[in-house]
């Protein structure tokens, strides 16, 4: 990406006790996008956020926001605001005073403070809570106050640190939709840090997947989910079946004949491959097709038996042990015409997939 990005982290290195959490890390974020940094705990995602906020200073590299180098700017002078994981509401101040805090610090006139706080509280739908203290609020309400307190300052970038993780499932779902709405309404760049892949996929314009301080892949949720660049991304974003394969011959149109275990398959890959190349063939559980063995016409799928089959409400999730010893997971949507549809344990089945739905990555890539 070009250097004209709205927010750019350039060659950032950050060490804690001589251990490099980030090493020559680059990141580019566009104006007005909802950008999510996703990764397991300890991957450095929160450090990235804290570097942008100014709570940490990079050991090397620089951070450029809207054309200005902010790397050496104190946190209190940066045009960014943070929604903390613990909310960090000031316990001795009312909701109003919490939200007004940033404006007071910036020396905004009293009358303006009043109207802007009201506005911000309206955005998060907490209009009647001005005089409450934080301990009189529920978790979801605290969350809203924390958001209001950040957006009232009209930051160029809003940073959200695992902000929804303390909420229960239902509230979290609701707040995801809220956040997305607020972001659209305000048009501010949101940078959201989470370890929850579902949250990342449902809210973001773009997602960065990180591991061990290294960016693994940047892309739209769809790209990340459907075309993971490596095994880490593939496995981190939901369940996936990985088949090891060897290319036998190249055909035209990125079609290849490949050996997968004891069978030969025609697979589709987005890249040039040579005969002899080792590859991983990736298939999401919902991409697999299962049929009773006796119903199958030709046995060009993989044969195995059902070892587990669980009803989840929307889908039937099965684990199948193939005869070659590999275990695969399949997830099938219910067929409304066949409500009794289920597998018996030890049922012999036949596993296949729709040609072209597979995603192929080279085996020597970082995994």
């Amino acid at each position, binding site marked *: 990406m070009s250097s004209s990005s709205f927010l750019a982290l350039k060659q950032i290195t950050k060490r804690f006790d001589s251990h490099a959490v980030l090493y020559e890390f680059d990141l580019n974020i566009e104006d007005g996008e909802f950008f999510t940094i996703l990764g397991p705990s300890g991957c450095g995602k929160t450090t990235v956020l804290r570097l942008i906020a*100014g709570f940490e200073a990079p050991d090397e590299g620089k951070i450029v926001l809207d054309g200005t180098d902010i790397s050496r700017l*104190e946190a*209190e002078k940066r045009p960014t605001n943070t929604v*903390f994981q613990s909310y960090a509401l000031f316990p*001795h101040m009312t909701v109003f005073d919490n939200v007004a805090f940033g404006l007071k*610090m910036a020396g905004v006139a009293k009358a303006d403070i009043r109207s802007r706080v009201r506005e911000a509280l309206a955005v998060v739908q907490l209009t009647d809570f001005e005089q409450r203290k934080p301990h009189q609020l529920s978790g979801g309400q605290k969350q809203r106050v924390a958001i209001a307190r950040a957006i009232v300052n009209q930051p160029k970038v809003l940073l959200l640190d695992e902000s929804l993780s303390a909420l229960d499932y239902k509230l979290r779902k609701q707040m995801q939709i809220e956040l997305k709405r607020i972001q659209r309404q305000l048009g501010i760049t949101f940078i959201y840090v989470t370890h929850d892949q579902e949250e990342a996929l449902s809210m973001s314009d773009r997602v960065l997947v990180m591991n061990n301080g290294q960016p693994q892949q940047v892309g739209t949720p769809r790209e990340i989910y459907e075309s993971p660049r490596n095994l880490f991304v593939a496995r981190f974003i939901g369940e996936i079946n990985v088949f090891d394969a060897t290319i036998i011959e190249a055909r035209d149109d990125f079609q290849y004949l490949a050996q997968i275990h004891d069978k030969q398959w025609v697979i589709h890959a987005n890249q040039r491959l040579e005969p002899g190349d080792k590859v991983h063939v990736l298939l999401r559980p919902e991409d697999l097709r299962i049929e009773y063995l006796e119903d199958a016409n030709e046995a060009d799928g993989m044969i195995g038996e059902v070892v587990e089959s669980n009803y989840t409400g929307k889908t039937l999730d099965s684990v199948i042990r193939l005869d070659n010893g590999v275990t695969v997971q399949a997830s099938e949507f219910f067929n409304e015409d066949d409500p009794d549809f289920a597998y018996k344990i030890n049922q012999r089945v036949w596993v296949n997939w729709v040609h072209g739905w597979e995603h192929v990555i080279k085996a020597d890539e970082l995994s």
Partner: protein
Amino acid sequence: MKAFIANLNFRRLVITLTISWLSIFVLLPHLMVVGTSFLTADADNFAIWPITLDNYLKVLDDTYAGVFWDSLVLSGITTVIALGIGYPFAFLLSRMTPALRAILLFMMVIPFWTNSLIRIYAIKMLLGKKGLFNLVLVSTGIVDKPVQLLYTDFAVIFGLVYILLPFMVLPLMASFDKLDQSLLEAGKDLGANAFHRFRHIILPLTMPGVIAGCLIVFLPAMGMFYVADLLGGARSLLLGNVIKNQFLVARDWPFGSAFSVFLIVLMGLLLWLYYKANQYVQKQGGMDDQNL
């Protein structure tokens, strides 16, 4: 059934012990002090009828009111100095690594393991005409001849702060420990500079510690008669000296009690203030643990 009775007995034993011990040795004696303060002094029976307000009138008498006032001033200065040293000390310690902090706190408590009277004696040695202080002052040429440090108000304050400083630091440390670091980051994030963070976040949130610290420095300071006795010379400087005199020498218990009631009332007042401060910073359930 037998087990139920055994449980009941153990439980009853524990509860009875708790209530009776505290009633007999805490509640009752406090009430008796208040009661005695309204009685008339008697050489043989300590205190007798009739009920009178004379003791309180005597407390307000010029001579004693003067002692009372002096005592308040000395304790006040002691408290302010202890806070002035203790607050930055606790603040700096709270920002250190836990290991270092533990070591420094531990070092702060070590001098406590000698009797406080002996420690005051140590200060007496230090401040004397030929003590280390004067030795240093003279040998560095700051003064020509040894200055009178001992038997002055300065010496008393020096000693009181010495004995009471850790009592100031410990509640302050507790307050700083409760201070959530993310609140300071939030303050920074919202544009507050170091001064504003201190003024709007750190200071209000550590106020309970400040008040608790002042409370357990100010009140005891007024009672430490031995500090005044050893470092302050002949004058009765502290309330403690007066009370001790009334009880152990003059044998005027009602009058001594009246003085103590003033202290108790003062304590009540300060506790109320402490309670209010706690309410003010009330965190998510964290601060209202004061009921033990």
